């Protein structure tokens, strides 16, 4: 039996507003417990919600970023259930009329194919607090700092057909929300949480199988693993005569398995109804137009521009446009030096990329500024240093020794391009190594490298490699 996997993703992304969705308390990560929990967060008797304009703007911005229908009227509803991290006993969310309707995201898969993934809707809702399970005298501790922070819940159509596609979609979505500056997308801090809906069906079947929902997966790697586990589990279950139960599950990273959460979810009747403390949210064309104006160039647009304006290959353009800050950095380097875009791209992606990888940092934490890197590019371009020397300079810059020019001067790394000087060095080396000269002249081409090495040694690496090659070849011809 050939199986087809059907995946839909719900992503809860915390919006980067300064204050909560309905209360003016701060949203900074890492504050001491319950120090960012005001009267409304604590659901004190008599307090009332007032809507944060910035959250609405960010939701609309997202909608525009995925080409979605923006609903000019949307309604907040109460989702009623009891849980200690939900102080009011209800979550204010949007059910029937979300603020963002149907949209889509174009995802480039590894094979170079682009898949259009549908987005069903995106709506605003409050985040819940946190239960800390450390044993406090046999009790759990509740921290409500996070309760009330605005979330944008982004729901995809069940268009994804593999874990790889799912992760690719998530990466694009993740990059987009950071691009739009509506979320920092920090998965470790819980700013970007994925619920994965997985079902299987016989290949060719039109009907969907029963799906399970695996909640709160907070890394791309875990999403991939959770999907693999779930698919295998469901297939095994069905093939052995069982049926998949529609339920909520949790991914356990330590055991690499998903587990049923059935206890919490049993027959939860949420009794949605419009929140009577709030009025319908109505925005107009002007509101949306003003936000459209603030929209940055979107990743897809930037990628195309990098290809046409800088002549970059598809892959390079994709990498550099994936993160706004990365694209900005690259463009700054290009604009500040006369080096070719391709060379700059290479240095940013490969050399700087390796450094960032090692430091486990992203471009915003780069030890070298774009200006500094541009400075080095310029010196390569004008032949002040050779490509090889440039790497040394680069390492010194990373180590904090200063700008390219300062390092080149301090370490005397200027490339020598004076033909006479190079000829002198070559003559000295050839004179000092007659045996190798004879070897070379007898046909052993490999010895050429030895001479290059020797000249580099006595020139302290400063001989211009191209010129050195030319002079050496010439002199060896005899």
């Amino acid at each position, binding site marked *: 039996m050939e199986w087809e996997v059907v995946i839909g993703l719900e992503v809860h992304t915390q919006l980067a*507003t*300064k*204050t909560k969705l309905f*209360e*003016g*308390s*701060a949203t900074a990560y890492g504050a*001491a*417990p*319950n*120090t*960012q*929990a*005001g*009267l409304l967060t*604590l659901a*004190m008797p008599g307090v009332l919600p*007032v*809507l*944060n*304009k*910035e*959250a*609405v703007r960010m939701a609309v911005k997202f909608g525009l970023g995925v080409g979605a229908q923006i609903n000019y009227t949307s*309604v*907040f509803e109460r989702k009623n259930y*009891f*849980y*200690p*991290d939900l102080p009011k006993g209800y979550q204010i969310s949007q059910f029937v009329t979300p603020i963002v309707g149907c949209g889509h995201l174009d995802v480039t898969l590894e094979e170079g194919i682009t898949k259009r993934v549908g987005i069903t809707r995106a709506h605003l809702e409050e985040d819940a607090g946190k*239960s*800390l*399970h450390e*044993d*406090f*005298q*046999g*009790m*759990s*501790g*509740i*921290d*409500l700092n996070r309760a009330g922070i605005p979330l944008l819940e982004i729901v995809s159509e069940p268009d994804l057909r593999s874990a790889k596609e799912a992760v690719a979609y998530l990466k694009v979505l993740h990059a987009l929300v950071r691009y739009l500056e509506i979320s920092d997308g920090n998965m470790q801090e819980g700013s970007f949480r994925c619920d994965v809906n997985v079902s299987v069906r016989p290949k060719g079947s039109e009907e969907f199988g029963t799906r399970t929902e695996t909640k709160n997966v907070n890394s791309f790697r875990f999403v991939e693993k959770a999907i693999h586990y779930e698919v295998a589990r469901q297939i095994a279950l069905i093939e052995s005569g069982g049926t998949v139960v529609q339920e909520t599950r*949790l991914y356990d990273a330590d055991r690499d398995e998903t587990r049923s*959460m059935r*206890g*919490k979810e049993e027959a939860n*009747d949420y*009794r949605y109804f*419009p929140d*009577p403390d*709030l*009025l*319908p*949210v*109505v925005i107009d064309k002007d509101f949306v137009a003003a936000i459209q104006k603030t929209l940055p160039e979107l990743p897809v647009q930037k990628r195309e521009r990098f290809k046409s304006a800088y002549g970059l290959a598809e892959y390079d353009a994709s990498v550099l446009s994936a993160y706004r800050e990365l694209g900005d950095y690259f463009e700054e380097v290009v604009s500040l030096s006369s080096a070719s875009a391709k060379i700059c791209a290479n240095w940013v992606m490969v050399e700087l990329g390796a450094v960032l990888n090692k430091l486990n940092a992203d471009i915003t934490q780069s030890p070298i500024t774009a200006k500094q890197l541009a400075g080095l590019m310029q010196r390569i371009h004008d032949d002040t240093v050779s490509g090889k020397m440039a790497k040394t300079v680069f390492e010194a810059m990373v180590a904090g020794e200063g700008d390219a020019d300062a390092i080149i001067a301090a370490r005397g790394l200027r490339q020598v391009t004076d033909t006479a000087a190079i000829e002198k060095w070559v003559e000295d080396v050839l004179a000092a190594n007659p045996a190798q000269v004879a070897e070379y002249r007898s046909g052993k081409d490999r010895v050429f490298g030895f001479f290059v090495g020797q000249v580099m040694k006595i020139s302290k690496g400063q001989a211009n490699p191209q010129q050195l090659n030319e002079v050496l070849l010439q002199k060896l011809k005899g």
Partner: protein
Amino acid sequence: MALLPEEVKRIANLARLPLSEEEIIPFTEKLSTILGMVEHMESADIAQVEPLSHPLDLHQRFRDDVVTVLDEREAFQRIAPAVLAGLYLVPIVKE
């Protein structure tokens, strides 16, 4: 509208207001009576009437994204049943 005790039990649990065995029957009777009063509204044919969310059909006002609420944890937790290290304590929450 006669409610069944089973239904009443389900509602009571949903509302975290469980009823004792002695309370179930009287509660079921009272609730049935109240819902019976509501019954004759059900026969009104008003599907085409728009629901009313607010008498004056007003819209939600916005608030600027500025911090206006400061940390008053000490004052707020003074009236709490059980706190430790700034956290509200509850019986263990199983995931």
